[in-house]
């Protein structure tokens, strides 16, 4: 995976600085810092309960960390809600599928286009030429995405009726539709077989390559992580124990201990 890239890796795009998050007395994340570089694919790995999803939830504004700050494109994202953070250019998928179950596949993906559609309710109600044009253009984009993800035949099915793997794909589609600068993917390949995983990897790499989208993904499959990521962050008990290129992380003694379950101290 080291051919010449259309979008070479640049400087820090997203900086996580000394984040700490507690739920009541439970520490989910402790003083965690790392940078995500522009155009890279960054993996976050770690045992269950290491605080990986909580970290994404902090970046995307769902959780408000008690300490530390998150800087995106040089701007501090502090105490702002997820919809504003989405506007700034951060989109995501969720670990436990957060699709709009009763809506069709195409409508789910269309919601991802929300930030590209700014007609108000009166324009929509009266179907002004501008509203029609907007709707048509964005549907066009979504149809392209549906084709790209090879889910054309289920485009009108309510997503609640789809099998898990397909739902994961739709969720990726919805995140892609936002055309955000950075995508946070929370276990995009969980519960998939080898074939499906390979396909998903292909989509992720293709998007990264063609659009230059920066990706942050949480993944358990080490094979996948080593294959597609440029850099890896390893979390354990809410703390970072390693941060670097996959080859380096793989040989890190702390990481090996954490995965093999060696007792701390």
């Amino acid at each position, binding site marked *: 995976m080291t051919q010449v890239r259309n979008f070479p890796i640049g400087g820090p795009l997203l900086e996580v600085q000394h984040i700490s998050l507690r*739920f*009541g007395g439970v520490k989910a994340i402790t003083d965690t810092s790392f940078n995500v570089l522009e155009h890279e694919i960054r993996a976050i790995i770690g045992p269950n309960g290491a605080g990986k*999803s909580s970290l994404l*939830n902090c970046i995307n504004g*769902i*959780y408000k960390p008690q300490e530390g700050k998150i800087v995106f494109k040089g701007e501090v994202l502090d105490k702002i809600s997820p919809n504003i953070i989405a506007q700034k250019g951060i989109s995501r998928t*969720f*670990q*436990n599928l*957060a699709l709009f179950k009763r809506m069709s596949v195409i409508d789910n993906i269309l919601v991802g286009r929300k930030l590209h559609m700014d007609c108000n309710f009166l324009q929509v109600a009266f179907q002004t030429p501008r509203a029609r044009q907007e709707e048509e253009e964005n549907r066009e984009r979504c149809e392209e995405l549906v084709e790209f993800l090879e889910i054309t035949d289920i485009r009108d099915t309510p997503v609640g009726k789809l099998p898990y793997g397909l739902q994961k794909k739709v969720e990726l589609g919805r995140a892609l539709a936002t055309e955000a600068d950075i995508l946070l993917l929370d276990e995009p390949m969980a519960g998939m077989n080898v074939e499906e995983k390979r396909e998903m990897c292909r989509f992720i790499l293709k998007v990264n390559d063609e659009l230059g989208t920066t990706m942050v993904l949480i993944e358990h499959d080490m094979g996948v992580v080593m294959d597609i990521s440029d850099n890896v962050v390893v979390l354990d008990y809410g703390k970072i124990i390693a941060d670097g290129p996959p080859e380096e992380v793989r040989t890190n003694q702390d990481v090996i201990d954490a995965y093999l379950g060696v007792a701390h101290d």
Partner: protein
Amino acid sequence: MPIWGWPMTEILFFFEVVLAGLLAGTMYSLVALGFVLIYKASATFNFAQGAMVFFAVLSFVGFMELGLPFVLAFLVTILLMIAVGYATERLVIEPLTGQSEDTMLMATIGLAFVLQGLAQAVWGVEVRRLDLGIPDFPIPWLADNLGIFVSALDVTAGVVAGVLIIVLSLLFRFTKMGLGLRAVADDPGAAASIGIPLKNIMLLVWSTAGIVALVTGMMWGARAGVQFALVDLALKALPVLIIGGFSSIPGAIVGGLIIGVVEKTLEVYVGPYFGGGIEGWAPYVLAILFLLWRPEGLFGEKIIRRV
């Protein structure tokens, strides 16, 4: 002897208003108690509790009209309420297991209409008087010696509410059934997997709620007559629950008392400026204000939504 510039009679009157509020509040608490029971056991919000109150007491009065003596009518109605609980569990709750909270709520709204319709279709719609043999006029001793006018019926209602609450709390805390119930409320799947009979527990809970409804209905019926308006009155248990928290028995009590006192004092001291009638909405507005301040209620557990 004025206190803070208030003449004694004013102060006594204020106490009377507060006391009336407290006692009216116990009535709300009783309805709220029925809601809490079912909510604790199944996380289902039973909108039909008010209708159950009406259904139970109307049936009780109906049986008395048919010539059954008081105690027998009471027992027959209890059996009836257990049957209603059983039918509800089998026909409504079980088929909808696993549905969203909103769906369950809508279903119990449907149930409320079924129950209140059934009661009226069977027993008719006229207002009945219910005489429990407890006078609804001021207790002479209190009136003579303290100048406070409190009805004996109100005091009885307060005592009954207190006893019910203590009994239910004890059952919840110390019996095997209560323990199972709390386990079920926590995690129905896990509870079932360790052999707690889910269905029996639900049946028990719905029956208990039915009996609580009957007692509540008798108290209210004696006071305001057995009539359809009971259903609307029971709606006031909703703000009570919001203030107290849906899953807390003490919450239901305290919430009821707060609502009772606030609505009575507002009605007496603020109402006249607006031509009265603010009792009708004041509890709900109070509930909204409360929601903005503490959505989980006074005694409810804070809910952390995990993503």
